[in-house]
């Protein structure tokens, strides 16, 4: 009987401890709630100003100068000394002035046309301050009613493939360049004997050239307003 009473007393003690932990837990949650509420319930003061910011755009577009059909044409049977002129308009159509206008040219395949800096194709660029007046055909002619500016001396495609040529240091917003793109197969001596071309011949090769004009944004500015 005494033992039963003792056992009953130990049970009450255990029950009391559980209540103690429960109360402690509830107290902890309460403290956290009060802490959080304290953080957000502090006094605040706000001053608001608005500022509209837009980022600039840089856009370079390319179009043919009529009646020239521009790029995308096929130039067949170029013999040494032959030249082909294409006329295009290059426009800086974004809202940012540009710097470092360059031209890179790459060709498909790996033929002497694009890999040989002496025998292969070469590109030269002339600019005109107004649109070129073009007479198509062979022989063709073109006149510049404004000022003609050599922008790129004759440069092998083999060079332009790895090192783009510089055309202009700056290009203003909305500025356009009227370009004469001159493609030349340089004069060279090659003898065909009894219908057999020599080794490393320039004859009968073909490539598709891709002209890539590239510009960069003007120098970053720090303005005060």
């Amino acid at each position: 009987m005494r033992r039963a009473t003792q056992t009953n007393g130990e049970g009450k003690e255990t029950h009391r401890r559980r209540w103690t932990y429960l109360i402690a837990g509830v107290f902890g949650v309460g403290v956290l709630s009060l802490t959080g509420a304290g953080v957000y319930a502090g006094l605040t003061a706000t001053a608001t100003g608005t500022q509209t910011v837009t980022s600039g755009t840089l856009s370079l577009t390319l179009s043919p100068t009529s009646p020239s059909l521009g790029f995308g044409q096929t130039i067949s049977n170029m013999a040494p000394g032959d030249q082909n002129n294409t006329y295009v308009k290059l426009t800086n159509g974004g809202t940012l002035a540009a710097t470092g206008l360059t031209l890179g040219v790459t060709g498909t395949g790996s033929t002497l046309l694009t890999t040989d800096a002496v025998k292969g194709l070469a590109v030269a660029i002339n600019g005109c301050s107004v649109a070129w007046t073009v007479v198509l055909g062979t022989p063709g002619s073109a006149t510049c009613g404004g000022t003609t500016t050599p922008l790129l001396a004759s440069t092998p495609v083999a060079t332009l493939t790895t090192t783009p040529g510089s055309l202009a240091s700056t290009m203003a917003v909305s500025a356009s360049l009227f370009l004469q793109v001159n493609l030349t197969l340089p004069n060279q001596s090659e003898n065909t004997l009894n219908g057999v071309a020599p080794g490393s011949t320039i004859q009968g090769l073909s490539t598709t050239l891709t002209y890539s004009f590239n510009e960069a944004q003007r120098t970053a500015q720090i303005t005060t307003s």
Partner: protein
Amino acid sequence: MKPRVPAIAYAFCACFLLVLGALAFPVMDGFASTAAGAAGITATAGGAIGQTTLAAGATWGSIPTTLTTGTPPAGALVQTFTTSLLGSPGPQTFFSYNSGNVDLAATTYTVTLAQSGLIVGTPTATLKTCTVTWTATCSGTSTTINTWTGGAGTPTATTVVPVTPGSRLSIQTSIGGVGLSLGGTITVTISTGVNSLTPRQIRAAVTTNA
């Protein structure tokens, strides 16, 4: 008995506050790093379809051949003449074929002679063009290219050529200089060369606006 708050409750509260603080401060750092990392802008025109150009190189050449149609195989032409007892053999003809895809302005011919058997005299070979196909005679206009003697042929250029790609020019080879002969044979080897620069034997260079 007065309930006590266990130490674990305090520790839990402290951790919760630390987590709150750690979440708040990195947001402010993020704004700063974004502004500092602004990149430059570049624009490119070209490289897309419609901004490419297909460029192809020409071919040029001439092939001496006896074939009257089709594209002859490349190579020199060998003509064999059998001499008669009392003199030179009769002429033979061949064609110079424009095997390239550009017009020709000139062609260089090189002829070498070799002989066997008994031949009295010094054989020569003469090439003559004709504006129409040779028969026994030239019913059109004939032009002599050159006369060669011996084995070391001197290259000789002529502007009478098959101008357009795929065309043929009729040429006669005649043998001279043979006096008496017994079982003699003269072998004539005809070679043609077309150069692009020195001398320029293809059409003149052109400038095209397109």
